[in-house]
């Protein structure tokens, strides 16, 4: 057993232990703290699985944005689990079912075909037609661009769904905790110092994403974090769901993507195809617009809707 494998085994055990804690912890808050570390550990797993792009996404979303959402909710909900946990019969049955599924999955994973089927050679072979150097970006924006386009609609629907949960009398009001800016010096300083740096980093990650790990989603999430930070510091006001400006930023990316996709019919014969001469620039343009929209979407999803005035 090599040293690397021992390291991997330790990482796997740690991930599983944190997962068990997350499920078993009695109180919600420590369970969610466990989940945040789970997200960060998974990011390391992704690096070990040679997926730096996924690691960046996992750290930004899995540990970051999702963690903020869950922690924010846990802090506000006063619910406690009852004295009596779920019936022991249910737990045994669920445990047996889950064990069976894990065992079946484990068996399937250990007996996957060798050599493994792969699309890597085809993905690399298609790169010249797209003009980008990062095959993952090529998959996301060219080969399977339709997934990315529909995923943006999924995000947009999630934003609509979150807004839909605004009480009728608060439609147009500012989202709750951000409406009252706390003038905490430390956070204002942090926002003033970090936000410009963060924006540069976010833009950089998108810019290099065409050829190196990174891309619209990772960059957009960082921009969203900076937006949240300056709002938290009270430096700018949050935007209500009725803000036309906010809505246009939300749809800008998907709309441009869709327009270029339809233009593909005229330019190169197919929906969502790019003429090779302009492919790289069109893709960069789409990524830039998507980044802006993603930042707005993630921001809105984390902030949540306006809540009822008390």
């Amino acid at each position: 057993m090599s040293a690397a494998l021992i390291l991997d085994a330790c990482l796997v055990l740690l991930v599983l232990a944190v997962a068990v804690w997350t499920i078993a912890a009695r109180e919600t808050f420590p369970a969610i703290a466990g989940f945040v570390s789970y997200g960060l550990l998974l990011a390391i797993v992704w690096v070990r699985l040679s997926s730096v792009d996924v690691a960046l996404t996992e750290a930004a979303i899995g540990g970051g944005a999702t963690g903020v959402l869950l922690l924010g909710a846990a802090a506000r909900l006063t619910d406690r689990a009852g004295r009596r946990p779920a019936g022991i019969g249910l737990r045994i049955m669920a445990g047996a079912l889950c064990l069976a599924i894990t065992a079946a999955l484990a068996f399937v994973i250990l007996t996957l075909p060798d050599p493994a089927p792969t699309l890597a050679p085809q993905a690399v072979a298609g790169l010249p037609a797209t003009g980008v150097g990062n095959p993952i970006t090529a998959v996301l924006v060219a080969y399977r661009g339709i997934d990315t386009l529909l995923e943006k609609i999924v995000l947009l629907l999630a934003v609509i769904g979150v807004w839909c949960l605004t009480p009728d009398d608060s439609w147009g009001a500012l989202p709750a905790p951000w409406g009252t800016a706390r003038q905490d010096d430390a956070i204002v300083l942090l926002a003033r110092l970090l936000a410009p740096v963060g924006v540069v980093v976010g833009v950089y990650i998108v810019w290099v994403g065409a050829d190196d790990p990174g891309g619209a989603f990772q960059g957009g999430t960082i921009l969203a974090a900076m937006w949240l930070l300056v709002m938290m510091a009270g430096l700018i006001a949050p935007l209500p769901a009725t803000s036309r400006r906010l809505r246009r930023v939300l749809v800008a990316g998907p709309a441009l993507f869709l327009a270029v996709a339809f233009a593909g019919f005229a330019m190169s014969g197919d929906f969502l195809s790019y003429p090779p001469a302009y492919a790289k620039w069109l893709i960069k343009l789409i990524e830039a617009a998507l980044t802006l929209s993603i930042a707005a979407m993630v921001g809105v999803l984390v902030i949540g809707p306006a809540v009822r005035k008390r």
Partner: protein
Amino acid sequence: MLQAGGSLLVLALMLPVIGILLIMSLDARHTGKIALALMPAGLAVALAIAARVWTTQAGLEYFIGGWAPPLGVALRADGISAVMLVTTSVVIGAAGLFARAEFRQPDNQPEARAPLMFWLLLLGIWAGLNAVFLGGDLFNLYVALEMLTFAAVPLVCLSGKAETLAAALRYLLFALLGSALYLLGAVLLFGAYGTLDIALLAARIAAQANMASPVWPLALWVALALMTVGLLAKTALFPLHLWLPPAHSGAPAAASAVLSALVVKASFFLIVRLWFGMLPGLTPWLGAQLLAALGAAAILFGSVLALRQARLKLLVAYSTVAQIGYLFFVFPLAANPAASTASAALAWTGGWMQLVSHALAKAAMFMAAGLIAETLGHDRIAGLGGVARVVPITVIAFALAGASLMGLPPSGGFVAKLLLLSAAVSQGLWFWAVVMLLGGLLAGGYLFRVLSPALGPLPAGWTPAARIPRDRQAVALVLALGAVLLGFAPLKSYDLLQFGRPAIAGAVTR
């Protein structure tokens, strides 16, 4: 290279998306108008696709961006996709007309929440449905399923009442569990076969089965089981139906109509895609019988609970739990290795007829139930006395839709159940036939519970809680008439359901 007919498939998928983007970026005054304007366009595209499938007698296929699978994503439309696309645009269009007055932005006032959200979410559901019916790639279909979930769940709690919030949360948790299991199955299939394209998967699975020792690899079994269970949770097949009645009865009537008529059918459609499209001629017989057994349990259980409901909308929702059950008879009856090709084709047609006639009838019924509740100010069945005298058109629509659900001749529901029944009898699977007959009787019972007081005398001194405009009642009536008239469709037109259908008789028994 313009792939023939491909632009139609792209257009069907993207029209509702364009609507969402337009509504989000324009003034709220235009919301309803944009959505309603897109509906005839969507119907025209769906009809054009159906016409193309009909004339070419084969499926349409489009590789997005010109990238062929396995690297790229294919859209495909066969006979059943075409029928589903048309049904969807009819029901969505009807829901739009029905909701037009209810979800109008108030003039000269600030934008209101509910109308804006209703139209956006309705278009979201439409986009998700079309993506499911056209999707040829398992991961793309996962995204499509999520579109559907994210649009359907907020519609359930559009009113913001506490009980609808709880219903929506329960629905969301079931749906998320379903998507996670579905995704896991798709992941395993990619690991085993190196593609997510259903047609390529079918070819690779068949090639493996034709080898000297046809073994069913465990990966395929596990993946199929995970995906099927996940999709059953979204279809609300017994015993995974718990979320459906509160969710479908709590939504606004127009939304309930769409949820019950179409949304639960989308995941059923995908199960059929997997069991028949991905495994042509290999459908596992035991599994098919198990699905039918769950369907039978759903019919009996759902019908008995419908009989016991005190509220009209819940009765209609439990009737959906029961009617979904009939769909699952397709699995054993159309994949029976011992059945003749003709008998299997009969069952196949019967299953899709059941789906379409239930879609029209149930949409009509939810609309009618909504209108009755508006007139009376409540939907307690005990207080329905004489409502037929107040909103006669609505009660006629309810009765006609009910006739189709019961399977009374000459309705579409009658033809559907007759086809399934005769397939069951001719294949010697008479116990499924008995359940179908029992289900029809029980449906008669719960519909009688509604119609008997509704046709009775009005209580003295009764005043309506709201006046119901004729055009809204007419929408429900037209849908119900559609469900009935489906029974008169010429036999030749059923052929559409068979185009592009994989050979299904001769399943492997294991």
